[in-house]
């Protein structure tokens, strides 16, 4: 049995019918990790003993009624896990091996009896689009090892795509769930800001960060989101919205659905295979009874710039806590207190993190606080207004997830070009909207492409229904990377 040939729903039935045990599922996951992770390099920590113990306890209790009972999972390493190393893929937290608490989303997974196989790689502090900025390893794309898996949730994506686990948790500040999902042929959901608690999630840019699931199917995704969503007293930004039964939303029906396609989403910088895949998807939606129109959201053209300013500014503030005093790396070269801060941060942070801290501090300092940071926050309001106006007339916005399919290692050297890879995903973060990426085709080289759906605040049910309808009408989600490892 290879995990990626089954859905969570199928495994649930197999467990109930005693066709498989939780321990067998866990062993299956561990065997796949052993077989492919040397090449995929998704995991930073494998918690094999804890996973086996948990699975055995589940089997002993004999009940698999909990929503994710026995399902093998992976957790991005910027999500705090009690007693399990949590590094954010940074030297700064390399020795943070024994955290004292679980993030709320981890508590919720445990209550749902999912079995965590461990922690997976990311761009350092989630800053990147290829997982190349990790201080520890380069994760490869299971579809082709010469290509990046995307980022920053690259380990989360690669672990699911290669069949090591059945789902993973990622975080998305500017596309970090959707872009890797798109690069590895998965379904990735960035929920509405405030739907999922950020308690215990290592902050990058707090007004943008959200946790969400990466899975192979829409149904799997809905099941995981249902578990992790909901108000949390410990996160003041988590909203008091009732969590719907997302699985009930999975009906094949888009009749009468009104789709908007922002012209900025198919413009300059978007490759022809990506454009073609979106056009084919729109034709499919028409056949299924939906209609679409091109719309103009004029401020979207500024979203990448607004995102760079706001996310870096917030990061400069979020990462000020790493001072070598209470936890994290402390340099032994320091002569005084201020020098200890500087030495520790200089040794602990990598090149990209420093770049963003320097730019972020620049836009928070002096006149630029008004001319850049404040101005970006105002343009952010206008971007939100553009979406609001569009949703008065349309139900859902559709476009590509990324301008191109996955790129090769070291192919994108220039930081600005790397930032541009997020240009289609950052608008949803800026407006706090839910957005989902799902497989929509393949390039000539066999690399996956993703379609992005964006909805109103708290319209996850609609997004799942639209995604499910498209998924059931196409075969894109049925392809697998060969052997669960990389194919040449």
């Amino acid at each position: 049995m290879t995990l990626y040939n089954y859905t969570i729903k199928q495994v649930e039935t197999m467990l109930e019918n005693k066709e498989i045990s939780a321990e067998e599922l866990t062993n299956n996951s561990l065997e796949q990790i052993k077989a492919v992770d040397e090449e995929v390099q998704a995991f930073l920590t494998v918690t094999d003993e804890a996973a086996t113990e948990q699975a055995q306890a589940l089997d002993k209790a004999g009940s698999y009624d909990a929503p994710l009972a026995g399902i093998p999972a992976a957790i991005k390493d910027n999500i705090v896990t009690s007693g399990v190393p949590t590094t954010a893929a940074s030297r700064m937290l390399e020795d943070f091996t024994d955290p004292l608490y679980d993030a709320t989303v981890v508590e919720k997974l445990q209550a749902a009896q999912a079995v965590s196989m461990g922690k997976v790689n990311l761009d350092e502090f989630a800053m990147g689009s290829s997982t190349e900025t990790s201080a520890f390893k380069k994760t490869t794309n299971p579809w082709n090892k010469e290509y990046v898996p995307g980022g920053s949730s690259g380990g989360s994506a690669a672990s699911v795509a290669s069949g090591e686990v059945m789902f993973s948790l990622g975080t998305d500040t500017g596309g970090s769930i959707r872009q890797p999902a798109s690069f590895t042929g998965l379904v990735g959901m960035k929920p509405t800001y405030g739907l999922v608690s950020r308690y215990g999630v290592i902050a990058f840019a707090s007004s943008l960060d959200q946790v969400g699931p990466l899975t192979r199917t829409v149904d799997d995704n809905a099941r995981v989101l249902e578990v992790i969503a909901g108000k949390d007293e410990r996160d003041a930004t988590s909203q008091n919205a009732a969590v719907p039964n997302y699985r009930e939303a999975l009906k094949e029906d888009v009749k009468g659905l009104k789709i908007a396609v922002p012209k900025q989403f198919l413009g300059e910088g978007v490759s022809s295979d990506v454009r073609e895949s979106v056009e084919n998807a729109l034709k499919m939606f028409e056949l299924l009874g939906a209609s679409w129109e091109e719309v103009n959201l004029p401020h979207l053209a500024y979203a990448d710039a607004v995102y760079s300013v706001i996310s870096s500014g917030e990061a400069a503030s979020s990462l000020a806590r790493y001072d070598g005093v209470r936890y994290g790396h402390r340099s032994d070269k320091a002569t005084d207190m201020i020098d200890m801060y500087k030495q520790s941060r200089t040794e602990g942070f990598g090149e990209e993190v420093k770049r963003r801290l320097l730019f972020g501090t620049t836009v928070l300092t002096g006149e630029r606080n008004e001319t850049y940071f404040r101005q970006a926050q105002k343009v952010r309001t206008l971007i939100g207004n553009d979406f609001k106006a569009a949703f008065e007339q349309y139900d859902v916005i559709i476009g590509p997830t990324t301008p191109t399919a996955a790129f090769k290692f070291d192919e994108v050297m220039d930081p600005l070009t790397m930032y541009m890879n997020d240009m289609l995903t950052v608008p949803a973060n800026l407006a706090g909207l839910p957005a989902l990426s799902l497989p929509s085709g393949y390039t000539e080289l066999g690399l996956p492409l993703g379609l992005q759906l964006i909805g109103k605040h708290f319209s996850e049910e609609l997004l799942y229904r639209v995604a499910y309808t498209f998924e059931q009408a196409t075969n894109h989600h049925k392809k697998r990377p060969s052997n669960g490892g990389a194919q040449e």
Partner: protein
Amino acid sequence: MGINEMIHTVFEIYHGGEGMVFSKEELVHIADQSRLHLTEEDSSMYVKDVQDILSFTAKIHEINTDGVKPTTNGNANHSRMRKDVAVKWDKREEALNHAPDHDGEHFIVPPIMD
């Protein structure tokens, strides 16, 4: 100088091609504020990078934002408030053990003054 004049000035500088607007001296100040040491090599790279990103993001100055309120929160709604109630927490010792240096009661840091 008002905000719009300031923005206009910045916009003119970036689009007027007047050369370096982010100097190495500024970078030194920013690195100090960011609590980072930079080598000569780092400085050469980052001064160009920050300059490039400032130029790229300067397009936000094209937009007239008179009367527009800034968005500072990811929520459409405001954050929820809660009562300021003390909660007992019994992991003081374990938390201290995360510190690079402590005496069992306090974090220990290098001297602040000579």
